[in-house]
């Protein structure tokens, strides 16, 4: 295979200059003439009927240009077609503290804020539900009348014969796991600028991962045709799923703009970001895993309850992902899954990096560690014995096309010095291993259709610039760069020649958005197709002009040349002009839709989980536990990730490290603390994302399994690593001090309590020096 010019190179991101000079614009950096400032009034009750709202005093305040309430935009919306249960402003009931009740647009933020205080809302408080296990027993005061018993959705799946398999297992573990609620905490607070145009159209600049879903939703709630609305995604300061569905301010700003006939910008405070949430739900997982004497995983059964908050959001997808990926990392013939998405009077949960897989993976990998111990087997060895053999179809119908997990495990073990360390470090210090995987995009779109998931256009004009029109959303993960690299590679041109026009619904064709790690795979394949088409047109023109066979032509370094005739060489500028001359225009379209075989089984809920390909990760964590304070110090994390092919190793490593870091935060210190529906830590001081001081050295290892269908072999890199970090930490803590913590985050308090419990069970004798180790 000829070596590549751009693919596989650690190139800097194409949008880096704007980011390092401060000149790049994020939504809140934008202002336009006549712009108003919007502020939202949030409910102070977790569950209350709204009897009446009086906005007259607010409207009378000088500087106030519009006040909107539920009546101004009564149409329901939601990210899932089955979950249209949200309204721009509450119509009848407020369902969580922070729910959106009304909004004001005024000439300054201070005036808007002051006007909020003048809105009188007559609330009738209702009994509220905070605990998911209690909420799902509710017989009255349901959060949504159409959801009896406060259960949003439940799914029951069985593959193979788990009962018989458990009966035949030599070792069985049954454990309950708890994962606290975590949130994205992207550094950029959400912001939306909605501009009412003089011709009656609406232009919306918003911090979104999904401009095309936003487009649909604004059309629905503003009762305007999509053709009259334009969505533009500016630079986005991180998403991690928190901007992957429509966030209330994104519809509130357009409603206000339409009412005021003026541009309106709303930017959340950090506190509002916490209440907008859509993060990873509290998860209670009852897990049972059976192992044969030979160390083969025989069966897994899980009952998972997720505390989804007050609205549907992505909830059914989250709970389905938890089931679909639970048994698909290893070769497991028997799987049972019972998943419940429960409503409570708290902000809605949603998609967060590693969507749906993270908390069950924590449960599974922790349990597997215990089973390895029961069977007297090394945790690395037990994983080796349960590998899939690609290509294959898992028991629940997921098609696996490439599988770099074996190499990930070997590399992570080798680089971390596993063999020398496992069980051999002094008491208080330990190592743990865990694995994970993730989809490279969902094979089935949220709104079912057979249309492409991504379409891109390329235009080359007489200036010989190559303009790529792509709907894909760069949110910091580097997708603009990857797409430019692919196009430059295929056309054999320099990176500087590629101009990218992205995520603007007036200019770019539909891409479903930056979620479920789909962009490299899907937009990448669409770019590949479009660029190959352009190249073929260029070659045809050059061949015609020089009287050669197009099959002998190649493109590289801004030149088209013949592999046969060293005299035939044309620079790209000339070749582009020749192609325009020959074809009339030099344009091409590329699309991507996952193949039929990748779209999964037929059972209810089978649509979630299938992906055209899966990434794989294995990690080893080394840490110390201070047995006096319970404090954990992580020394090093070795993270191997199979991304198919690293189109850009610099950005792939950045994604692996960022995922590991976020997993570490959830493992040890991040948790949203609720008290009767009120968030007790809605700030970055109290919701503690790891700083440089808490983040250890992360060594990322790229594994390349070369997926047969990925662009140049590439697959997912941005999410899959996160889920392995958490159980690797839990397993390392066990190795260090012999206690298992099944509850996240693993705080010093929980460790101390477990150490005391262990001490008590040994009759007060704690053998610190010789290793209380097991």
């Amino acid at each position, binding site marked *: 295979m000829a070596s590549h010019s751009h693919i596989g190179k650690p190139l800097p991101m194409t949008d880096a200059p704007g980011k*390092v000079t401060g000149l790049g614009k*994020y939504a809140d950096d934008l202002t336009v003439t006549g712009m108003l400032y919007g502020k939202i009034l949030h409910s102070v009750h977790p569950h209350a009927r709204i009897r009446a709202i009086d906005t007259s005093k607010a409207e009378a305040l000088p500087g106030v240009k519009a006040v909107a309430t539920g009546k101004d935009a009564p149409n329901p919306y939601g990210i899932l077609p089955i979950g249209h249960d949200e309204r721009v402003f509450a119509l009848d009931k407020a369902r969580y503290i922070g729910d959106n009740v009304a909004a004001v647009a005024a000439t300054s933020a201070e005036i808007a804020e002051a006007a909020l205080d003048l809105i009188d809302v007559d609330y009738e408080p209702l009994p509220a539900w905070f605990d998911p296990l209690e909420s799902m027993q509710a017989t009255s005061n349901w959060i949504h009348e159409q959801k009896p018993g406060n259960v949003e959705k439940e799914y029951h799946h069985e593959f193979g014969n788990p009962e018989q398999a458990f009966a035949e297992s030599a070792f069985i573990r049954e454990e309950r796991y708890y994962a606290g609620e975590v949130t994205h905490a992207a550094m950029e607070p959400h912001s939306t600028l909605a501009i009412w145009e003089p011709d009656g159209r609406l232009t919306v600049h918003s911090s979104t991962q999904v401009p095309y879903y936003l487009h649909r939703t604004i059309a629905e709630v503003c009762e305007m045709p999509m053709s009259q609305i334009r969505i533009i995604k500016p630079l986005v300061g991180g998403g991690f799923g928190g901007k992957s569905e429509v966030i209330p301010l994104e519809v509130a700003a357009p409603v206000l703009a339409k009412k005021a006939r003026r541009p309106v910008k709303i930017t959340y405070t950090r506190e509002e970001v916490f209440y907008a949430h859509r993060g990873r739900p509290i998860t209670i997982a009852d897990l049972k895993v059976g192992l044969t004497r030979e160390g083969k995983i025989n069966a897994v059964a899980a009952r998972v309850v997720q505390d989804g908050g007050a609205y549907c959001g992505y909830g059914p997808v989250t709970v389905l992902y938890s089931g679909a990926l639970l048994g698909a990392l290893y070769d497991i013939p028997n799987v049972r899954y019972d998943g419940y998405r429960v409503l409570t009077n708290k902000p809605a949960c949603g998609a967060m990096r590693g969507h749906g897989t993270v908390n069950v993976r924590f449960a599974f990998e922790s349990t597997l560690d215990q089973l390895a111990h029961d069977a007297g087997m090394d945790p690395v060895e037990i994983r080796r014995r349960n590998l899939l053999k690609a290509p294959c179809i898992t028991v629940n119908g997921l098609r696996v096309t490439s599988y770099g997990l074996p190499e990930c495990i070997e590399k992570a073990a080798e680089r971390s010095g596993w063999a020398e360390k496992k069980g051999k470090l002094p008491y208080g210090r330990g190592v743990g291993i865990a694995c994970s995987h993730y989809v490279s995009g969902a094979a089935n779109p949220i709104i079912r259709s057979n249309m492409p998931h991504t379409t891109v256009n390329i235009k080359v004009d007489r200036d010989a610039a190559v303009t790529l029109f792509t709907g894909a959303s760069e949110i910091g993960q580097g997708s603009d760069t990857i797409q430019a690299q692919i196009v430059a590679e295929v056309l054999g041109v320099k990176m500087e020649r590629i101009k990218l026009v992205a995520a603007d619904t007036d200019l770019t064709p539909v891409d479903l958005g930056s979620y479920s790690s789909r962009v490299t795979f899907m937009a990448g394949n669409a770019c590949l197709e479009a660029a190959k088409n352009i190249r073929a047109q260029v070659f045809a023109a050059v061949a015609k002009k020089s009287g050669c066979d197009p099959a002998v032509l190649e493109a590289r370094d801004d030149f088209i040349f013949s592999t046969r005739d060293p005299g035939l060489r044309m620079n790209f500028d000339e070749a582009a002009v020749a192609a325009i001359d020959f074809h009339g225009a030099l344009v091409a379209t590329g699309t991507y839709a996952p193949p039929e075989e990748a779209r999964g089984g037929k059972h209810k809920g089978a649509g979630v989980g299938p992906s055209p390909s899966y990434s794989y990760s294995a990690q080893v964590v080394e840490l110390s536990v201070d047995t006096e304070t319970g404090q954990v110090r992580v020394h090093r994390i070795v993270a191997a990730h199979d991304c198919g092919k690293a189109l850009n190793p610099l950005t792939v490593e950045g994604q692996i490290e*960022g995922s590991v870091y976020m997993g570490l935060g959830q493992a040890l210190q991040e948790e949203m603390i609720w008290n009767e529906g009120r968030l007790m830590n809605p700030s970055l001081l109290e919701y503690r994302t790891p700083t440089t001081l808490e983040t250890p050295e992360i060594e990322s290892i790229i594994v390349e399994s070369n997926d047969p269908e990925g662009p140049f072999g590439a697959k997912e890199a941005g999410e899959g690593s996160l889920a392995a970090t958490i159980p690797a930490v839990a397993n390392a803590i066990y190795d260090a001090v012999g206690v298992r913590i099944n509850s996240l985050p693993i705080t010093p308090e929980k460790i101390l309590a477990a150490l005391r419990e262990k001490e008590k069970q040994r009759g007060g004798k704690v053998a610190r020096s010789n290793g209380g180790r097991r």
Partner: protein
Amino acid sequence: MNKELIRLKVNGEVHEVAVPPHKLLLDVLREDLGLTGAKRGCDDSSCGCCAVLVDSVAILSCVAIASCYQDAEIVTVEGIAPPGTLDPVQEGYALAGGAQCGYCTPGFLICTKALLARHPHPTLEEIRVALSSNLCRCTGYMQIYESVQLAIERAQAREAAKPAPVGR
């Protein structure tokens, strides 16, 4: 609301703006001077996105009253290199992956600048401590350290490439 006229020297240029007496430096920079490089990431001085240099020291502009800085040299991310050029720290972050979404980047650049000004050859531990009040949610910090190292190398290379002073 009452406003007062204040003079701020930002990135070498003097600006006179009429602002309410309590207006924060971050808001004056972003709203009155159109310098949107410094970002707001939090409500309680916990993120570092808003950092600017005041007489070469990094401060959080979200908790600084603008009128108190009238005699100071204020430098924002837009001003750390002459227009059209990049400072070595900007090159470092751009090339080594230090800026993913880029939202934290202005704050990191400012704090890195301040660190290297007082300490041109910090150890990894010193870098870690110096950047510990800046939050980044994207990178896991590894490529930020690499960016700082690259910035140091680039600064050294530029120094070495400078023509020797005349007369020696």
